[in-house]
């Protein structure tokens, strides 16, 4: 299985809980290769070109952007999620789960976790965090160097939510990719980024490579705001000892993106059945519950709680150890859905061109 390895707690969950369980109950030896979405895509693409008999990975942990690219390459196995016994609990009807970056998942991938983006601030220094872009501008001017965003998936998610904000409506980017709309909105977005850039960390000349690097800067108080794609990470990181007790998570007024992350099986996986058994366990209530605990990982479940047996329902309703994470089921928390993947790819590309001046 190929997965992003940027979080020790996630790795620990896999190594200490999932792998031994699979070994004991199914006699499956799950080997983990740490590779990010783009590395996975480039690997699978190279294998496709080389007409390799088998893909390197049997199971890949992906998000919408990777899903889109792998579908473009026709590199994912289809027609398998409904065959999993535990799929009956999965909340496929939830638009934040059943639709990935504006694309129906159509049995090419199986949801694994559901999360919402949050900004995290240090309330030792900040009493009222900036709730709007205008407030953010004031904030960075007042405290230059204390805010930035990373170059990875998380930072891009923030940019996307700003892009949606510029559209004037939470549904402003719904539907397939619209280049004209993108041109118009991204122009406004870059103008805004230019405006705050001089007041960012390192004067906006460089950005943290990854979200974990940004968390490090936050924990050393070099930054006062960090962010996460996962609304419970703030508690998780507190338990890890990375964040202090003064870290608080919140969703800004313009909302933030809620999405799910998924598991896919490459079309030439050498052991697709094994991969399905692993996935079935990963979406089992037992594994999902374990994962939802911020002391373990704090990843939102993809199961439809109401479809579970009563005893499990109450368990999921009372997941322990939450401190600062916002409740994303609270209707006042504004959730945005992921726009089509081309927006993100264009944003990543243009960010390099426009802001970093790499052509």
């Amino acid at each position, binding site marked *: 299985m*190929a997965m992003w*390895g*940027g*979080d*020790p707690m996630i*790795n620990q969950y896999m*190594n200490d809980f999932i792998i031994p369980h699979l070994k004991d109950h199914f006699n499956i030896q799950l*080997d983990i*290769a*740490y*590779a990010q979405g783009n*590395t996975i895509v480039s*690997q699978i693409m*190279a*294998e496709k*070109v*080389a*007409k*390799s*008999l088998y893909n*390197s990975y049997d199971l890949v942990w992906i998000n919408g952007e990777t899903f889109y690219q792998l579908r473009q390459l026709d590199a994912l196995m289809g027609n398998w999620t409904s065959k999993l016994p535990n799929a009956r609990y999965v909340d496929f009807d939830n638009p934040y789960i059943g639709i990935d970056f504006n694309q129906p998942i159509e049995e090419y991938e199986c949801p694994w976790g559901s999360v919402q983006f949050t900004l995290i601030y240090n309330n030792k220094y900040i009493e009222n965090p900036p709730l709007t872009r205008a407030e953010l501008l004031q904030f960075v001017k007042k405290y230059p160097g204390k805010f930035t965003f990373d170059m990875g998936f998380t930072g891009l998610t923030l940019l996307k939510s700003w892009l949606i904000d510029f559209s004037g409506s939470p549904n402003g980017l719904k539907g397939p990719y619209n280049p004209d709309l993108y041109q118009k909105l991204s122009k406004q977005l870059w103008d805004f980024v230019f405006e705050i850039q001089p007041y960012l960390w390192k004067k906006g000349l460089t950005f943290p490579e*990854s979200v*974990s*690097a940004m*968390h*490090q800067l936050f*924990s*050393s*108080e070099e930054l006062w705001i960090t962010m996460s794609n996962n609304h419970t990470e703030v508690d998780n990181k507190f338990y890890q*000892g*990375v964040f202090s007790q003064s870290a608080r998570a919140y969703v800004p007024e313009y909302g933030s993106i809620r999405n799910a992350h998924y598991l896919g099986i490459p079309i030439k996986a050498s052991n697709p059945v094994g991969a399905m058994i692993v996935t079935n366990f990963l979406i089992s209530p037992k594994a999902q519950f374990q994962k939802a605990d911020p002391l373990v990982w704090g990843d939102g479940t993809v199961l439809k709680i109401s479809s579970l047996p009563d005893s499990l329902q109450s368990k999921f309703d009372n997941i322990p150890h939450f401190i600062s994470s916002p409740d994303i089921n609270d209707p006042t928390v504004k959730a945005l859905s992921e726009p089509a993947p081309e927006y993100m790819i264009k944003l990543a590309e243009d960010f390099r061109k426009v802001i970093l001046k790499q052509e």
Partner: protein
Amino acid sequence: MRWIILFNFVIVIGLLILLAISSEWPYPNLMPGGYFSKNGSFQFFNLVLLKSIYQSLLLSLTLALLTTSIGFVASRYASNHTRLALLPFLIAPIILMATLRHFFITIGVNNTWGGVLLGQFFLAYPFAFIFLHPFWTQKLQDALITSQELGATFMYTFTKIIGPLARPALTLCFFQTFLISWFDYGTAIIIGAGQVKTLTVLVYQYVQEANIYLAARASLIIGIPAFVLLLINKHYILGKIPFYGS
């Protein structure tokens, strides 16, 4: 001045050692703390590290043996074009491997131990070739032919005469090629595709997940054999060319 430079060396290595045995380093403390204690049970080696040590050692030893022996035989046939052998190790290993990945996949050895071995062979072999070439002096060539004239077979000559005569050179070459593999990151990450977890891959992995204590530990483990080789070869190195991968 010299003490400033050397003091810096000590700080760098010292911090590495300290981090390797620590479990916390809260800002703004100058020094890491929590030595040998993580919830009471400190394990310097965990299973992942042990596996990786085993795999890296096996890989590097095999590679060193392979390249040194083949390189030795081959360097006898070096010619004026020998200097071309410089090219493969001037190119960054990771780039060379990125351009070859397609072929590794085609022959079905990518993301395998054997594939990484082959990839590292392409880096270390030219080195062994160049390194051992000067040892094929006329005298050694003459010894090779003389021994056979006296009745010895080629194999006997190679193992009993040439081998011992060239032992210092071969030993040094063995160590150097061992280190090329031991320090290699590019081949392991590109050809290994995250599945061949050598110690260097592990260091990078730990850095990515901001697990500085394990990263330091893996780095320190990488340093140990290198340090031993340094002690053994101190005098050689101060007369010969050391080499690092990238």
